[in-house]
């Protein structure tokens, strides 16, 4: 499953989506809203997306890794809208027959998301300022 959603993410739910009796490993990445940007205190974040393209790109990344690597099911969910410190912004679960492929593909899929999925993060700082990441 490849989704962007405004609903809170459940690591367990994403994990369960990929579980199969043939796969002996699931590696799940849980991306968390951090309370600072290079030490500057952050109050909360907002994520914006081009939803239709984001879900298409997530699915393409999923198809790509299934073709290239010995993995089973993969699921990626990205949360959109306002997120508070400590909430999950993205959850990626990768199942595989053996652990090495699951670890490798989970990290690789996350790198691909950061490169090509149209989602944008705006940070709201404790001092009242805000900025779009990577856009100035």
């Amino acid at each position, binding site marked *: 499953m490849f989704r962007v959603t405004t609903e809170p993410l459940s690591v367990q739910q994403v994990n369960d989506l990929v579980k199969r009796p043939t796969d002996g490993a699931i590696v799940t990445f849980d991306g968390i809203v951090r309370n600072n940007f290079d030490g500057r205190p952050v109050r909360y974040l907002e994520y*914006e997306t*081009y939803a239709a393209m984001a879900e298409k790109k997530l699915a393409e990344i999923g198809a790509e890794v299934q073709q290239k690597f010995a993995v089973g099911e993969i699921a990626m969910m990205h949360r959109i809208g306002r997120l508070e410190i400590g909430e999950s912004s993205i959850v990626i679960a990768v199942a595989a027959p053996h652990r090495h492929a699951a670890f490798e593909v989970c990290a690789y899929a996350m790198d691909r998301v*950061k490169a090509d999925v*149209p*989602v944008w*993060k705006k940070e709201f700082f404790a001092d009242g300022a805000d900025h779009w990441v990577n856009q100035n």
Partner: protein
Amino acid sequence: MHITVTLFALMRERAGTDTILLEVPAGAAITQALATLVSQYPTLEPYIANTRFSLHMDFVDPNTILAEGDELVLIPPVSGGA
């Protein structure tokens, strides 16, 4: 012909809108549409160099020829994930 330009994130804020209807010559490439866009919305100019372009939910080259009714989506540097 007419196309629409869709903006997100900082460019949306700078333009003050998320959708712009543009009139461009028939057979215009994305690069020509961008010149028209920037002439009408000069506040977008500083960001164009770092922007990617999407048609029909795929990234496309800026030399791509546009068709009547196309939705050209400007994709500024993405920052998804954690």
